[in-house]
Structure formats: structure tokens, C-alpha cells
């Protein structure tokens, strides 16, 4: 198997005032090039921690990670990250937010006109060319998140890391953006790791769903192959028996095998 991203026996222990807290232990996962993998689990299971480890924002206390043949030693623009709360800089226009990333990655080797074209292409890809000059506070939550996706993809990363990208959006906007993400990913062939707590989102978008056990000392509980053909269509899948079965498997894992007591 072509292991593009290779997570090997990774563990993460945080030092807290009350002593060490083991967040993750014994995580092993291989992601193929062009594969879409979701991480799902109850809140507090460390799925975002795992994503931050791959992003390089955290360093694992055990094990190691390799992306495209190189060890992940810190954050870098070879991974495009989309944060849950969009994290756009409020004083920069949508265009400038994307351009900041483009300039960082291609600024040294490409002329200014090319950088501008790249930025515009990224905004067009997410359907926001018309809002390029708007400030983030002037556009809707869904549009902000699209800019975040454009920023992450504009730098042509080896891998796209999505941290509950649609978690803060309303259900209808979320559905639109999921469809859009399906289209973008199939057009770009991006390799994606996505954290989510939405079962439908995980099954609809992913090639594989990685289900995590509850923390502390969370690890991968089970991995579900989503063998639904692409392109996938939301409405058709709603009544698809295979989809319903797969969805049921995830639900069964979350609410039966890893049932969490009401907080």
C-alpha cells in the first residue's frame, strides 16, 4: 500500500498541574495519496489533538509521523489547515487572507501577477470571486469557512487538514459546503484528514472513517471502509441501503461500544 501519511504508534501526554494527562496512545494510521479520511469520536477523545499533531502544532511525546517520505517535525505550508473557527485575519480582505498564504509559499519563485492569479483562482474555486475585497466580518459564516478552505488549498499542500470545518455552521449551509468540498476534492485529488463529530458528514465525504475511543488515553477503536461509489450524491444516498448500513456502523460504535455518559 502506498502510505502517503504514516502515523506510527503516536502518543501524546500533556503535562498538567495535576500531573501527566495521557490524551492519545498507540495511534497507528496510514493514509494513501488522494484518500479522504475522517476522524470521528466523542468530544474530548483527542481527535483534534491528533490533527494538531499532523499539522505540527503539537509534537508527539511518543512515536513519529511521516508525510510523503519526510518526518513531520513542526508546522509547515506543505499541510493546509482549515480551522473550525475559520481563523481569518479580520483586518485583511478575503483576497489578502488567501494572498498571505500564497505569497508565503510561492512568493520567492513566482512573479506578483502569478501570485494574484493563484489567489483569485482559489477564491473562484470556492465560489467567492465576487467577495474578494470584502473583510471577513462582512461575509457570512459559511463564506468565511470557504475562504479558509481557499487559503488552505491555494498553497497546493500535500495534505489538507480539516478541523471540524463545518461545525460552527447551520445545517443547510453545512450541507452546501460539504457538497462543495466533495467537488473540490474530486477536482484537485487532495489527500484529506478531517476531524468531525457529524456521522453523516463522515460517511458522505470519506473513503475511510477512523473511529476513536473515549479519552483519556484514547486510541483508534475501529476503522470503517466507506465503499460507496463516487461521485456521491446526497439525495440518492439518503435511501441507499449500503449508506444506511455504514452510517449505522458508525452510530453503533459511538453510541453503543463507546457510549458516553451524559455530561
Amino acid at each position, binding site marked *: 500500500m502506498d502510505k502517503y501519511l504514516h502515523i506510527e504508534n503516536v502518543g501524546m501526554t500533556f503535562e498538567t498541574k495535576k500531573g501527566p494527562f495521557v490524551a492519545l496512545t498507540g495511534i497507528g494510521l496510514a493514509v494513501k495519496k488522494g484518500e479522504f479520511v475522517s476522524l470521528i469520536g466523542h468530544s474530548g477523545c483527542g481527535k483534534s489533538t491528533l490533527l494538531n499533531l499532523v499539522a505540527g502544532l503539537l509534537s508527539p511525546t511518543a512515536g513519529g509521523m511521516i508525510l510523503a517520505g519526510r518526518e513531520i517535525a513542526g508546522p509547515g505550508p506543505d499541510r493546509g489547515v482549515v480551522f473550525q473557527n475559520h481563523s481569518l*485575519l479580520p483586518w485583511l480582505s478575503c483576497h489578502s487572507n488567501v494572498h498571505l498564504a500564497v505569497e508565503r509559499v510561492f512568493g520567492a519563485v513566482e512573479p506578483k501577477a502569478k501570485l494574484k492569479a493563484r489567489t483569485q483562482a482559489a477564491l473562484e474555486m470556492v465560489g467567492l470571486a465576487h467577495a474578494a475585497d470584502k473583510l471577513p466580518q462582512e461575509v457570512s459564516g459559511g463564506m468565511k469557512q470557504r475562504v479558509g478552505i481557499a487559503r488552505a488549498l491555494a498553497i497546493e499542500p500535500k495534505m489538507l487538514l480539516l478541523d471540524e470545518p463545518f461545525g460552527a455552521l447551520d445545517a443547510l449551509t453545512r450541507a452546501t459546503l460539504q457538497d462543495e468540498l466533495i467537488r473540490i476534492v474530486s477536482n484537485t485529488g487532495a489527500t484529506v484528514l478531517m476531524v468531525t463529530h457529524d456521522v453523516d458528514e463522515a460517511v458522505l465525504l470519506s473513503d475511510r472513517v477512523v473511529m476513536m475511543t473515549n479519552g483519556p488515553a484514547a486510541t483508534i477503536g475501529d476503522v470503517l471502509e466507506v465503499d460507496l461509489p463516487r461521485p456521491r450524491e446526497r439525495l440518492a444516498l439518503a435511501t441507499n441501503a449500503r449508506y444506511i448500513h455504514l452510517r449505522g456502523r458508525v452510530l453503533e460504535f459511538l453510541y453503543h461500544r463507546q457510549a458516553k455518559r451524559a455530561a
Partner: protein
Amino acid sequence: MSSIALRKKDAFAVVAPPAPASSPHPSAAALTESAARVAARSRARPAPTGYRRAQAPDWLLKAVASVIGFALFVCAWAAIAKFGGRIPGPAAVWDAAVVIFSDPFYQKGPNDQGIGWNVLSSLKRVGIGFGLAALVGIPLGFVIGRFRFLSDMAAPIIAILKPVSPLAWLPIGLLLFKAASPAAIYAIFICSLWPMIINTAVGVQQVPQDYLNVARVLNLSEWKVFTKILFPAVLPYMITGVRLSIGIAWLVIVAAEMLTGGVGIGFWVWDEWNNLKVEHIIIAIFTIGVVGLLLEQMLMLVARRFNYS
């Protein structure tokens, strides 16, 4: 000059930048609500077109309230003047003000100049002292906010010096500069310094981790991090520091000039006290108040420009 007991309350405070104006203006909400009510009513009763319950606009109510408040204030003042002996009443002060403001920029020697010159020389001292404090305080605030060790180093010094009235530094200023005007500027510098350092440092410490994460995942250069993320994120806090500093500086300059003499609105107050022209002192009080208000409003405008929430 007889010795006087000068007491000044100075209040330095770390004040967060103006609360994000996320909630719409209350009057706007009220307006839309009343508009909705009007709309609902007109839907229920389609007949009387153009009917609207007369309702005073918000700004008008505000203006009326301000005028009534001011009128009451003047009445109270007139009553005090009538029964209180030496205090001149509003009419006498108004007459004196007309004379003074009809020629604000006359010059009859160093100790007799128009009120315009007095205000301008006070503003100049505040401007220089404050400008120097900004030059020193803002960069200092940045490094103190960025590096924990420096912050721990500076904390005890700031904690001890901050509550000291800037006027206590005046003798040191006189000793150092051997002249009145630089000593006053020095006092302004000292009193403007602390809010600027503290607010900038707090601003740096409050930069949202999300923004810094963006910088980290993109591996932005230190320069880009500073210009695109740190500086704009800290700017509202800096402006708050500037606003506090200017407010305090304007309080302090009056007292400092009373002590140092020369030209300036504070000196003028003291000079008119020696001349027993109480009307002029009251005029000075209003002038100081209006100038202070204008400074504050100006900086509020600037702050609004850089509010991104």
C-alpha cells in the same frame, strides 16, 4: 506664589479596548421593532395609508435631555453665585468669555497672552511629552508582552512607579533639565508612559492563539507575523493606551503648569487666581473640559476605525 496643597487623583487602569460593538445600536433595534409593529398594524388595517404614530427620533430625545441637564446645571450655578458670595454667576462669566474669546491670540509679553496661546502651549507640552512616551512605551510594551522574562523583570518596577502622582517627578525634572517647560514635559512623559506600556503588553499577550496558529502553519517570517498579525491585533489595545495616556496627560498638565509657571492654561488659572479674576478661572475650567472632550472624541474615532469585531 503661596504654597498650595495640590491633590490629584490619577487613575491608571488597564482597560481593554472598547467592547466589540457586535450588538446593533439599541435604538436601531427599537426602530426595527417599531417598524415591524407599524407594518403588522398596517397589514391588519389596510385602510389609513401613511398613518404613523408620531415618535421623536432618538437623537432628538438625547439632545433635549442634554439641553435640560445643562440648563439645570447653569441654574444651580446661578443659585450658588447668588447666595454664595464670591463666585461669579453665569452671566458675568459669559460677558468675560465674550471678551476673552473675541481676541484669543493677543500677545502682551510673556506673562500676558490670549487664551488660545495658553491652550496651544499646554497642548504642545502634552503632545511632546506624550509623543516621547509613545516612542518609548509602545516598543517597550511589545517586548514586555512578547517575552515572559522581560515582563517579570519589568513588573515590580511598573507596579511601584505606576501609582506615583506624576507631579512627584516634577522636582526630578527640574533638577535634570533646569528649566520649567522641559520639566512639565517630563512629567507628562512619565504619566503617559505607564498606560502605554501596560496596554500594549496586555494587547500582545491577548493576541488570539488562532491567529498565531495561522502564522505557524504557514511558517510566516517574523516580519510578516509582526506586520500582518501582531501589530494589527495589538492596535486596538495600543489606541486604548494612547487614549488613557492623553486623558491623564491633560489632567496633569494643568497642575504641572500651576507649579512651573510660564505660558499654559494651568499657569493661566493660577495667574488669574492671583489677579482674583474668578470669571477667568471658570472660563479656564470650561475650556480645559472642552479640549479634553475633543481629544477623547478624536481618539474614539481613531479607535472605531481599527475595531474589527
